[in-house]
């Protein structure tokens, strides 16, 4: 059996208990200014950026051969700022009895599968069950109030575009408060931030239009799942993924 001494030699770094991060006025200024500058750029280029989202929507729709209009709607993002955001006029109906039944069977099957998942994969079991519960709310709603679902695909896209763009604006200050305070060179910090923003700027509209297309084919019953489980949750996952990747990079210098 491994001795305490051996474990200590393997794990213990006497300096890590007092490790800090060497900070300079330049570092702190960078932590505040870089996000501010990038947010200003996002705001300044909101038009072209959201225009790109419109192009992505149009490309995706034509790829699946769906004829739907992608138009720009004026949206008051904050009281003093109006933004033109893309919106898709895509039709989707309440689930037919056939679709409703298939969704229910799918949920039952998914739940059964979770019972077969070995304990080693318990988080997967919880994840699938979480999604099942979310989708089940939709099944129940459409069973009890079939004609009263208050949203269409257009509403869904509108909200997701708003949420996605909000998230894009939040990324720089969040990274400024969390990643820019760590001991990495300014170039690495900026690189990570730009990569995360660029990824979100492309991935968000792709996700949105994918969900919209799936809703069109699968019925409005899928909107709750896409909205509640695949919207902000996915954005935050990307944020965490980029952050953790950035933290794994080599630090600038020995910590003091």
């Amino acid at each position, binding site marked *: 059996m491994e001795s*305490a*001494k051996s474990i200590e030699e393997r794990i213990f770094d006497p300096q890590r208990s007092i490790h800090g991060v060497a900070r300079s006025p330049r570092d702190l200024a960078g932590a505040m200014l870089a996000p501010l500058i990038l947010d200003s750029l996002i705001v300044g280029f909101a038009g072209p950026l959201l225009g790109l989202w419109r192009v992505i929507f149009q490309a995706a729709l034509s790829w699946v051969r769906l004829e739907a209009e992608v138009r720009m709607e004026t949206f008051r993002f904050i009281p003093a700022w109006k933004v033109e955001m893309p919106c898709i006029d895509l039709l989707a109906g309440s689930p037919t009895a056939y679709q409703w039944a298939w969704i229910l069977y799918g949920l039952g099957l998914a739940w059964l599968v979770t019972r077969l998942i070995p304990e080693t994969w318990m988080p997967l079991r*919880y994840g699938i069950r979480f999604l099942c519960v979310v989708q089940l709310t939709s099944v129940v709603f459409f069973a009890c109030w079939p004609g009263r679902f208050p*949203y269409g695909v257009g509403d869904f896209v509108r909200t997701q575009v708003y949420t996605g763009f909000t998230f894009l604006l939040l990324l720089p200050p969040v990274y400024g408060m969390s990643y820019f305070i760590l001991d990495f060179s300014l170039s690495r910090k900026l690189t990570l931030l730009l990569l995360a923003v660029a990824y979100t700027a492309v991935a968000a509209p792709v996700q949105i239009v994918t969900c919209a297309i799936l809703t069109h084919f699968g019925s409005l019953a899928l909107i709750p799942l896409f909205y509640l489980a695949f919207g902000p949750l996915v954005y935050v996952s990307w944020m965490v993924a980029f952050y953790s990747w950035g933290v794994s990079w080599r630090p600038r210098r020995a910590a003091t």
Partner: protein
Amino acid sequence: MILLLQLVLVGIMGILALYVGRHFSFTWNRVLGDQRFPYMGFGDFELPTVTILVPAHNEEAVIAGSLMALLELDYPADRCLIVPVNDRSRDRTREIIDGIAKEHPGRIRPFHRETGRPGKAAALRDITPALASEVIIVFDADYLPVPGLLRNLVAPFCDPEVGAVMGRVVPMNVSRNLLTRMLDLERSGGYQVDQQARMNLGLIPQYGGTVGGVRRSALEEIGGWDDSILAEDTDVTFRLYMKGWSVVYQNGCECYEEVPETWKVRERQIMRWAKGHNHVMFRQLGNLLRSRMLPFWKKLDGALLLGIYMLSPVTILGWVIAVFLFYANHNHLTSSAVALFSILAFSSVGNFALFFEIGAAVHLDGYRNRVRLLPLGLIYFLVSLFSVSRAICAQLLIDFPTRRKLVWHKTARYRPRGAS
């Protein structure tokens, strides 16, 4: 009805935002602020007499290793007594303890407990009156302290205001599987950032029940160990603070433990912690807020610390309300999105540590590869969230109304049986 639900959701968002702010503050302080290590490097002081208690219930797999490591401690033998507390073991624990005690006369004094209330707190309560040392140090039976640990751990007790001290717990079986790696991340965040930041800011660093110790006179002043509480460590922490004692966290005092290697064991562990911690919250929150010994910020931090496990059911409640509003509230889709986003944004980052905290901790620890597992914290978090919520619901709906006694279950051990 809709308005009421929206107000509740806003309230929940407010609570979550408070915790977000708290953890951000801790991260910033740990990374950027002045660090407090007031007792580091203390060499020239009279070492107090110490009794090391090692509660053990069916610990035949690990007790020998722990006792041998304790015998190697760099501490005057005449000022240190090791007392393994055999608590109603049915395996070879007693035999192993007696065997090692016989080989080291005068160093180890076994205490065998055959009757009485089950549990660690009860065992500690039974043995404490028989002790004469100034300081009581507690190690769990699977812990492996390194030789230099004890001197650094007891150094704060040269300050007469210090009532308890806590070291850092580090998993030794990190490489075993994904779960152990995730738990190591969690431990890093909890100790390297959270506890140290609370030490820096003069808030509430917590005595954690192992790799820590209590001044015997302070323990007597607060009435000793409470054997009706599962989380006797949290309980002692708050009772000490409310009597004017301080608790010191020593980040450099590392001791190694086994973390759960299976999800089932991890579930049981966190459900036990949640119930025990909440039990202390229900008992002590009012006393804490009324206490005249503590300034406002300590009371606030203490209250947030006590309420930490309640975040899980509160988060689920927020989700349920948000879902309901989603279906019912056509005109407020956007506000629901923002609300849900806020909840999910916090929820995605872990049980009670923001991923920033963990990221910063791992950065300070220097584990560059392991931090890439952080995104998996989302799924890992789901397990904790639902396990804790299940435990708290059972506690509120079954345990308290029926006055069911909380039973302590030991965590599984993974070292080969009989290893020494």
